[in-house]
């Protein structure tokens, strides 16, 4: 093929799928470059060892090591601190499907609560009202199940969910019972999983092998099952799996000219385009910019102001297990069916910044549960261990916490000076530590999780209170959005301040963390960006 695409899209996950579908549908030629393979439904199995214990749908630490350190004074060592989906569809293939909108307050927290010394806490340059039509479009386009009006803390919405909520599991019913006893407001979890047939796809069959797995039924509304097929159907989208971009190329005027990528045979290929859209996630997007140094951008592409890679935010909270008298069989169906957002907003009366939400969720799959799920006082082997497995596994559930992570300039993605990946490129080096308020919030929420389970009738609760950063899977904040080119990387429409034909659209644009579960917002931002890019391109302004 000699014809150059209008747009190169790097990454095919939550945002990349939206960009491919929207721009191809609008009449542009797009090429999607995806690091990982193009898997089909028949490739997915219920193999807990591969998909859960080895996180087989995520970045492989052997070929693509990540290094981690808590402080800048330390030397980072290889440790899989972050995970992201690495196949066509990205993380939407294996995620739990939680599809929460942000609240109106999420975009203006700096104005609501004031400055927090030592942080980069800021308002977003856009409001919930700017994004609302695109949340609605995302929900309709991919298929989201939920119940509008059930959560009294929900922001206003212009349309109901396109599908009714998923049936509650026993964990959801118990959670609802406990939460109501405490005066809280539980509601059906909104999920991008089909409760009924939708647009040619069948409803969820409740097989249970959901989070960490790909869906054989195409009932999970992943980019793989929805947006990518729609993009390919236009005839204007070329999808190149196993294509790993190593560099974004610029000319002497500072405009992007195309990308250099490794093809499946690890041969370097240059592909020219009119514009490049990076949707590679909150770690790989800044890493790629840092790998794309030039005379004009000596600190990395679009990074003359030094903000690329700063303000990485983390999944801070922990889960609490509860044991109940009768079998829940929580291994069946989807992961989460009920949520409370009563603690969502920050409250200065607590004495620290932060808030969170809690959901009723399946705790872990059989082998993972046997390895590390039982209460610490339970025998770890022998006949009593075996008996405990049979007693606990059907009778347990988890209350999952999701809380705030403040943006700190010291929490960064940089290039590791020594560790390389299998292609010879510097590994991403993660430097992350909690802000004291993040830890206080997570521990405070942990108590609320215990209280709900106890009010629900749990005869035993256990879990490890948050104390050190664990695995983070929601990668946000590292190329933040803002009006001011001195303190942000992209403008409110995701165009890089320093490079007119470069767009960064994924979790990296986030200014604050909300309460995790970022996928709905990543996709709403992408629909909004696609709308803007389409109009700008038609006016010849890209």
């Amino acid at each position, binding site marked *: 093929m000699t014809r150059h695409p209008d747009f190169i899209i790097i990454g095919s996950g939550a945002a990349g799928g939206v960009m491919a579908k929207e721009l191809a549908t609008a009449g542009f030629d797009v090429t999607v470059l995806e690091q990982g393979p193009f898997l089909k*439904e*028949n490739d*997915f*199995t*219920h*193999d*807990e*060892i591969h998909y859960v*214990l080895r996180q087989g749908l995520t970045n492989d630490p052997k070929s693509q090591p990540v290094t981690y350190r808590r402080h800048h004074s330390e030397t980072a060592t290889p440790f899989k601190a972050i995970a992201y989906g690495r196949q066509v569809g990205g993380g939407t293939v294996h995620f739990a499907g939680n599809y929460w909108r942000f609240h109106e307050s999420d975009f203006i927290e700096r104005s609501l609560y004031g400055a927090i010394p030592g942080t980069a806490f800021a308002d977003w340059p856009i409001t919930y009202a700017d994004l609302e039509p695109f949340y609605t479009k995302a929900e309709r386009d991919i298929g989201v199940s939920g119940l509008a009006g059930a959560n009294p803390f929900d922001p206003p919405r212009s349309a109901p969910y396109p599908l009714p909520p998923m*049936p*509650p*599991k*026993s964990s*959801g*019913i*118990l959670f609802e019972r406990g939460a109501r006893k405490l005066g809280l407001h539980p509601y059906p979890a909104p999920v991008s999983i089909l409760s009924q*047939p939708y647009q*040619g*796809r*069948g409803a969820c*069959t*409740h*097989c*249970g092998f959901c989070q960490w797995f790909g869906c*054989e*039924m*195409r009932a999970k509304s992943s980019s793989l099952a929805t947006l990518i097929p729609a993009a390919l159907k236009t005839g204007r989208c070329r999808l190149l799996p196993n294509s790993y971009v190593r560099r974004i190329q610029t000319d002497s005027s500072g405009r992007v000219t195309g990308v250099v990528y490794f093809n499946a045979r690890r041969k370097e290929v240059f592909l020219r385009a009119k514009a490049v859209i990076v949707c590679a996630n909150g770690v790989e997007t800044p890493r790629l910019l840092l790998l794309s140094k030039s005379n004009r951008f000596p600190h990395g592409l679009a990074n003359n102001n030094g903000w690329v890679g700063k303000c990485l935010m983390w999944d801070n909270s922990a889960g609490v297990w509860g044991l*109940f*008298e*009768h*079998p*829940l*069989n*929580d*291994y*069946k*169906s989807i992961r989460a069916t009920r949520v409370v957002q009563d603690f969502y907003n920050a409250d200065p009366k607590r004495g620290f910044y932060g808030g969170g939400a809690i959901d009723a969720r399946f705790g872990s799959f*059989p*082998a993972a549960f*046997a*390895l590390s799920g039982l209460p610490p006082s339970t025998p*770890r*082997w*022998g*006949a009593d*261990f*075996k008996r405990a*497995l*049979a007693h606990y*596994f*059907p009778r347990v559930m988890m209350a999952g916490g999701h809380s705030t992570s403040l943006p700190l300039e010291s929490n960064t993605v940089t290039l590791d000076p020594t560790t390389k990946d299998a292609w010879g490129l510097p590994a991403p080096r993660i430097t992350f530590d909690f802000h004291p308020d993040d830890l206080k919030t997570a521990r405070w929420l942990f108590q609320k999780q215990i209280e709900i389970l106890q009010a629900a*009738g749990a005869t035993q609760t256990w879990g490890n209170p948050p104390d050190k950063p664990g695995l983070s899977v929601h990668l946000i904040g590292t190329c933040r959005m803002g009006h001011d080119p001195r303190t942000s990387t992209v403008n409110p429409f995701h165009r890089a301040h320093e490079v007119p034909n470069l767009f960064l659209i994924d979790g990296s644009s986030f200014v604050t963390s909300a309460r995790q579960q970022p996928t709905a917002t990543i996709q709403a931002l992408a629909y909004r960006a696609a709308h803007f890019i389409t109009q700008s391109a038609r006016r010849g302004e890209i």
Partner: protein
Amino acid sequence: MDSTRRQWALSTFAAFQHASHPAAPPTTLRYLSPATAADLEALASTIIPSEPDSPGAVEAGFRFFLDHALLSWDQDKRQPYTQGLAHLNQLRLQLFPNSTFIADLSPQQRTQLLTAIDRSPFFELLRTHTILSFLGPPSYHGNRDYLGYRHIHVEPAMIFSPPFGYYDDPANNNNPK
């Protein structure tokens, strides 16, 4: 049948086949020697024991699971096994000077032996493989006939419908427990 339903039925059938028909379980060892396999199996059966009417790691196929693991997806654990077993045999001779093989120890003696090492990395490795042989996917040659899943009350099926458990069953809705 409209195309959506046909597609759904076909994909359901394919996925069910996928999930529920692992390759025939092996009957011979390809990596482990019979003596080593017997020693390791004796340890695995101390971690997840076989009991009357309640099969354990042995019946789940531990020895074939481990043999397959060390030949394929967990090859880098060969050395830890060789070293761990050598150390354990030394310990066995200290604790039970007249014994000849781990496999010949009484259940009480095996428990005593494992208690002496149950904070060690080798024990963790052995425990992990024992659990995976019992509760992992049958395609790894363990969890034979889903007996591990049955032990923890998991039905190996592709399709479920509500009620999933006691508490979401409308019949129990008036029961405060």
